[in-house]
């Protein structure tokens, strides 16, 4: 395997306690074949580095404007014409205060591993490890395989957080080095799935069925108002989950925490104004799953 291979990573989050057992470091890969409307990490979607802005950090030094025709300053502060942006990322390089920041860097396996290994003692004491998430890790299978292989060599528990949308042959190879799969199930209806995420669910469900016998699997269900939270929809997902032998089901209730990031990327949030789910609603969903004898947790 080529050790010079690089992966496009947009964040490594240490001390993650909701991405598998114990305390973990989650490596977020950039690029995703799905574009879910509720996505709380919109900066994970594009498979190339891009810029993200934080206006409040801008000190109006105008260094960026001097370099780029797409950037100008007016009475409201710095303006970026995203249509003109050619992604050269020089603005992020010169910005002193990280008011413009580069999202996504090409890193070697060694670079990522160094950060992951720093918390080895924490994994040992908590039963944690490394989770590779995204975006979609399976878009960068060679890097992810090498990263997980090397982590396992060091005795680190590996988890793969995936939407499951990849050719089975690709997925199968990666799974060889995975101890736990966190597999997203969003909807049982292919058309509705396609409408809200951009792709239908056939490949995903078929991959899930093949994964479960191979690797320990937890199903994760983002619970989205107006998408999959009706009684029938929940029931269908629960029925399907129960038909597979999965260890656990995690319900991830919709939240708006990622909405501010859309503007920072020059986009608008598709689910603007959607209210969070009430505690009662979440409880009733949990109960529905429990009726199928599934171990359920909220979050995590």
């Amino acid at each position, binding site marked *: 395997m080529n050790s010079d291979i690089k992966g496009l990573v947009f964040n490594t989050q240490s001390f993650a306690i909701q991405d598998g057992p114990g305390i973990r470091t989650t490596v977020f890969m950039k690029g995703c074949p799905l574009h879910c409307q509720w996505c709380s990490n919109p900066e994970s979607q594009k498979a190339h580095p891009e810029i993200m802005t934080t206006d409040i950090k801008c000190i109006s030094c105008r260094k960026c404007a001097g370099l780029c025709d797409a950037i100008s300053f007016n009475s409201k502060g710095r303006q970026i014409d995203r249509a003109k942006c050619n992604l050269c990322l020089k603005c992020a390089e010169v910005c002193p205060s990280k008011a413009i920041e580069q999202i996504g860097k090409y890193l070697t396996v060694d670079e990522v591993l160094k950060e992951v290994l720093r*918390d080895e003692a924490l994994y040992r*004491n908590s039963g944690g490890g490394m989770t590779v998430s995204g975006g979609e890790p399976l878009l960068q299978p060679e890097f992810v395989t090498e990263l997980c292989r090397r982590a396992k060599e060091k005795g680190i528990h590996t988890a793969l957080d995936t939407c499951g949308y990849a050719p089975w042959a690709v997925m199968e190879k990666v799974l060889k080095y995975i101890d736990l799969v966190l597999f997203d199930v969003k909807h049982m209806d292919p058309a509705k799935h396609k409408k809200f995420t951009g792709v239908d669910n056939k490949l995903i469900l078929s991959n899930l069925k093949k994964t479960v016998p191979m690797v320990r699997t937890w199903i994760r269900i983002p619970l989205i108002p107006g998408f999959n939270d009706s009684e029938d929809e929940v029931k269908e997902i629960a029925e399907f989950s129960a038909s597979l032998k999965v260890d656990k089901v995690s319900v991830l209730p919709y939240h708006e925490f990622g909405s501010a990031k859309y503007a920072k990327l020059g986009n608008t949030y598709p689910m603007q104004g959607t209210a969070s789910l009430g505690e009662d609603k979440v409880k009733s969903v949990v109960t529905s799953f429990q009726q199928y004898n599934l171990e359920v947790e909220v979050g*995590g």
Partner: protein
Amino acid sequence: MISVEELKKATTVKGVRNVRRGLNIKDESNRGMYRPDNRMGLERERLLVETYKKTEGEPMVLRRAKALKNILENMTVYIRGHERIVGNYSETPNDVFIPLDLTWRSFRRMIIEGEAQTLLDDKGKAELNELCKYWDGKSTRDIQVKTFKGCEQLEKYWQYDGTYMWSHFYENGTLDYEKLFQVGLNGVIKQCQDRLMEINKTIPFDYMEQKNLLEAVIITCQAAINWGHRFADKARELAAQEKDPERKKHLEQIAVTCDWVPGNPPRSFQEALQSFWFCHIISKQIEFPSTGIGLRIDKLGGPFYVADIKAGRTTKEDTLDLLRRFWMKFEEQGFAFTPSISGIYAGVQTLSSMTIGGLDKDGKDITNDVTYLILDTAEAMHTVQPSLSLRVHKGTPKKLLERATDVVATGIGYPSFFNDESLIPLLQRWGCSLEEARDYTFTGCVYIDIPGKNAHRRSAGYFNMARTLWWALHRGVNPETGEQYGARTPDPATFKSVEDVMQAFLTQVDFFINKMLQVENVTKSVYETYMPRPFKAALTRGCVEQGKDIGGFKDPNDGISNFCISGGQTNVADSLSAIKKFVFEDKEVTLPELIKIMDKNWEGHEELRQRILTRSPKFGNGDEYVDSICNEVHCRTEAIIEKITDKYGARYHWDGSVVSLGYSFGVDTAATPDGRKAGEPLSDGSLSPMVGRDMKGPSGVLASCAKVDTLHSYNQLLNQRFMPQFLKEGNKEKFVSYLRTWHDMGIPHIQFNVVSSANLRDAQKHPEKYTDLIVRVAGYSAYFNDLSKGLQDNIIERTEQGL
């Protein structure tokens, strides 16, 4: 069991409000230094002066002994309706303790015309004036002033200029409670009598000193025993009138207890607590103002409790009831601080901590039933004092860490966690035997101590490392006055590497700490001559054996006597890291340019400041580049202070407790190359990352801290803030594993604020709704409302480690 509400209703809480930053900057001083219901008691001061007047010309140690006897014989003793453990330092429960014999000018000023006028009414103020007249020229501080007079060096470097603050406040030291519980004060008296008989035969050269000391010890021990009898009489008197059968029983029990202790070895857990309390309150307040507790309550109390239960003398329920009432004795304590010291001890009562858990002298875990009863009590009581220091080692039971997590999760800021495997080797390196080191304890904050060990253990004061770096960047010359105030270090324009900057910094540390400790060493003699401590000597190892007062002898390798609190180390490390990268590696700016920019507080150079803030490696992110610099700052400054000794050859050490000096001294610290602006607070603990600069979560912080070598530095302090959810329910187990990891990484200390920023902000807006809100400031907890807005903001800005 008595309700917490009932106990709290009966208690007047005393925490000093911080009204100054640095020496002169007022910090909301108009709100006053004390809560409106706090008062100053004058009885002790009155009785002390009475004896001093009567005993002029006698040996000082006997004068102090007789004064203590006069106070204990004639002061008001009271037993309040809820008390089962008794003993008071002042005539009413509303009083803060003010020692005029130590220093009186600042106290008088603050009460007569300053920030603490609510402490006395007009009549009291008149009497205070009279008492101060007596001490004029006689108080310890007056004698110190006279001693320094004519010595330009001492007079000049005694003053606070922002670099360090020498202070009379405060002394620690833990009594030999093991001895107290084994032989009682009668046993000590017997020991003194035997020693007197012995010297009558051997006639040593220091016969006079020994005889005076031994006689003084006997006087104070007898006085303490008789004080107990006064409480016993009072309890009997109250019992005779008492209608409620349960309370009557309690009062009768108090009478029996106080007749028996502190003279005799306790026979029960209650007698042990009572014996401890009498000696604690006498030695730490009535005899001489000092902070802390230091009792290893589970180690010493556990066997009594087990025996009580076995013999059917008590129940768990009844013991919890007893502990709750005992707890309020601490919460009721309060010290007066001078206004300038209030900036350093914001919200402090008496900085008191009890130690639980840890190893015994043989290396076995001491956890017992009392350990858990103490945690139960702390959780239920939710008070600022006593705080708890939990010693953790490889064999600490998981159950204990889980219970400790529950208590931390309540938001009270303790227990604070200490690492046996880091601190025991440190103490050994400092000169303690393995047995002694295993018995270490904390009096308050991270003030590390060995119970009963011969030590006049005090902090010489508070030292600002960040300002010391500023001197190094200015050749020791104050740019405003042109005065050569610090060491004459080379022109920064000639520095070729960050090592040159480090050298200049270390030279300045060497220069200033020597100046400060000269003041300290001379003042030690003032204390020894004018403030002998016969009661403390009774329970300090070696005093009776040698006939010497606590300051009269010392093993040069005693390890723990002398220390100085220091802060700002993280800012120095982050600054050196910025200089290394931006000046010597990337050459974005020359050092003389950078110094000029800082002299102008970054004005016109926000771009550079932002680049440093966003691109220079900062301590707290597990970045070797700066972590190794930080380690050097700690170890190399410790090596410097360890070269300095007192007259017995005992070395000095740094102490990382920091208290609230990071906030207070920040005001007197110019801009620093780490991107900090002039006047902004410094880091909040010796091992804490600078606020807001740790971006890699809790494990990034641990990774950095683990790079600092405890063995070659000193006892450190690390503050962390967590969202309350992380300690509760399903996450509790993860928090416990995080604690284990902290331990495995060899980090000496950690403590937690567990309260959300949203709550703290709401508390700023609606203080009336949050009278009970407690936060961890440094090595102590305080009521949020007692802190100035600026310090509150500083606590809110500390990085909240999320989920």
